[in-house]
């Protein structure tokens, strides 16, 4: 597998604060890569450095093998965390302009913009000013702006934030389609559920440091099949007090239970069966959410774990 983006010992500080602290990471070509981490972990800073919008204090970043970003800029699509459009411009004119910046001629960019507007179901709004559009429509346009010019690498910073489920679904489908066409997609998020469903490979960063990285399946494998999914009727508040339970995520009539090493799931099942009416009991690998909580929730210095081989 070839590498689309390679970071080596990348460091970036702002006024003495280490936003990105010596990150080394290979993002494989093809597929969808999730850059995960809590707010303020350094995701956007890392992405901005990949985009050459800010430069690292030290370390190197290669995108598509090029050492100078200028050579690949037109082949990288970007959706920044801070969304922004030319509010006074007409939708199609603005997309045409943004499209030309990927190296297309105005005519080609216009054709491509039009087809994206159709695909995102806002073709009728092409000659309206951007400011006249609803927030959801502006999100679609922002997305179209990022994917114009058939980029080889598409970087999406928090693509689903503030989006309704309909748009989320639309974009998810678009992302999968683009990915199938051979584009490497990197997206950042702090929503683990989305990441779990979309990424093939991921990296988790916290406080500027890489906590873990690797293919999703192997990351989960590394944590073992030591979690329980429980669905029940009754009050599950006692679950956390059972012996052998490390931590519990309770959702009323549904809980995700992480076991301590060596704990016996059958013993847990017996105790639970005495008190609750169990509808579902499943031994599973931990969800990404649980892994995230375990890794990031811990205050101890993060330990770098490289799980599996890319």
């Amino acid at each position, binding site marked *: 597998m070839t590498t689309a983006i390679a970071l080596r010992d990348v460091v970036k500080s702002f006024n003495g604060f280490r936003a990105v602290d010596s990150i080394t990471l290979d993002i494989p070509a093809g597929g969808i890569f999730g850059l995960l981490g809590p707010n303020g972990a350094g995701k956007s800073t890392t992405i901005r450095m990949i985009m050459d919008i800010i430069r690292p204090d030290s370390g190197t970043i290669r995108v598509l093998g090029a050492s100078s970003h200028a050579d690949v800029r037109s082949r990288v699509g970007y959706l*920044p965390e801070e969304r922004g459009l030319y509010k006074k411009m007409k939708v199609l004119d603005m997309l045409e302009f943004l499209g030309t*910046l990927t*190296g297309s001629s105005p005519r080609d960019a216009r054709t491509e913009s039009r087809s994206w507007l159709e695909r995102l179901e806002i073709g009728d709004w092409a000659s309206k000013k951007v400011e006249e559009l609803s927030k959801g429509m502006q999100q679609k346009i922002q997305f179209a702006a990022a994917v114009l010019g058939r980029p080889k690498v598409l970087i999406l910073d928090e693509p689903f934030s503030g989006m309704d489920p309909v748009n989320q679904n639309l974009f998810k489908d678009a992302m999968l389609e683009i990915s199938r066409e051979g584009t490497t997609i990197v997206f950042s998020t702090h929503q683990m559920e989305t990441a779990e469903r979309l990424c093939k490979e991921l990296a988790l960063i916290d406080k500027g440091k890489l906590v873990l990285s690797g293919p999703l399946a192997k990351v989960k494998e590394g944590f073992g099949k030591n979690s329980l999914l429980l669905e029940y009727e009754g009050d599950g508040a006692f679950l956390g007090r059972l012996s052998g339970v490390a931590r519990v995520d309770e959702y009323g009539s549904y809980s995700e239970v992480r076991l301590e090493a060596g704990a016996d799931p059958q013993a847990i099942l017996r105790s639970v069966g005495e008190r609750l009416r169990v509808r579902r009991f499943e031994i599973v690998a931990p969800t990404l959410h649980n892994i995230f909580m375990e890794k990031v929730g811990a205050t101890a210095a993060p330990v770098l774990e490289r799980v599996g081989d890319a």
Partner: protein
Amino acid sequence: MHNILMIVRREYLERVTKKSFWLGTAVFPLVMVVFAFVPMFLVGLGGNERKSIALVDGTGKLAAHLTRELAGEKLQNGQARYAIESVPIAGSIEATRASLEERVRNKTLYGILSVDADIRTKDAFQFYGRTVGDVKSIEEFQSALRRAVVALRFENANIAVDKNVVAGLLAPVDMQTNEVSSRGGSTKKGFTEAYLGTFMFVMILFMTLLLYGIATMRGILEEKSSRVMEVLLGSVSPGELMTGKIFGIGLVGLTQVAIYAATAGAVRIYLGAQGSSQTAGILSSFTPGKMTFFLVYFLLGYFMFTALFACIGAVCNSEQEAQNLQTPVTMCLMLPMAATIFFVGQPDSTISVIASLVPIFTPMVMFMRICVETPPAWQIALSIALSIGAIWLILRGAAKVFRIGILMYGKPPTIPEILRWAQG
């Protein structure tokens, strides 16, 4: 290069297709014309009514001479412009004059001229008017008085000279000023023409530089506040973005200047066909040579100031914030304009020469000097060379400041900080 062209294209089309551009383009010359012509028109208006002037004459002999000398000044309907009313002295000259003041106040008299019995003293002639700002009338009246008094002096000295001889002897001596161009030849030119012609050019230069500098700054501020900046930076480098903006908006500026030049040229040809008038005199400043220099210094000034304004836009988040940083830059434009009268009057003084070679002042000052005289070729060449050097430095520094400032939200940096970024 493709990206820069595309940015130029957007900046140009977005601006030139706006109504406000054409409105602004049309309004500016209109304002200039109003400023230039309305005062002249108003002065002309006041001159078309009969003016009665009371004469309190200590000599008793001036009235006839004065009436004769004023006879030449006619209103448009052919009547005499000035009516002299001799008022017999009751008591003293001063008392008589004082008694007439009421009539000046109620406007039945334009003014009072009191003349001492001894016309050789310094303060012998006193004019009392409701207004002393009517320069044209007062000048006319004064010159008639001067001729009348000279005639009276001849009479008092018992020199009997033929009236025509006196007229010949007293024929006014007006000195016509001419400008010797160093390229050979000379043109008839007065200070007013030189000043007005230059000032008009300088005004256009000042307005366009300021206008487009601020337009650039505002464009960048808008892209920052609408957060579209980062979307752009995903596709273009900050350097490309800045270059594209400066050239795109510059092209809009050139379009406007071209419209003005074409208009001025057309007006000049039209007025030329109408026969020469004072306005044609001012418009005669629009020679191809001067236009070329205007273009050169416009471009030099444009790159210098727009780069500076672009930096200000990059490091600020709102126009209010930008105000503080804008002041020193605007001052660099304002100062030479405020001193136009000095540079036009003393184009060769050491201060003028030095100021015209300091890059930040060059576009304005060197251009003024070129308008009124022809500075040595080496000075023109040196000023252009120094400016180009300065522009190169400014653009290089600006690109660095731009790169850092463009993604900065929060408190704008201080000037020393900006300078540090520019060097780094």
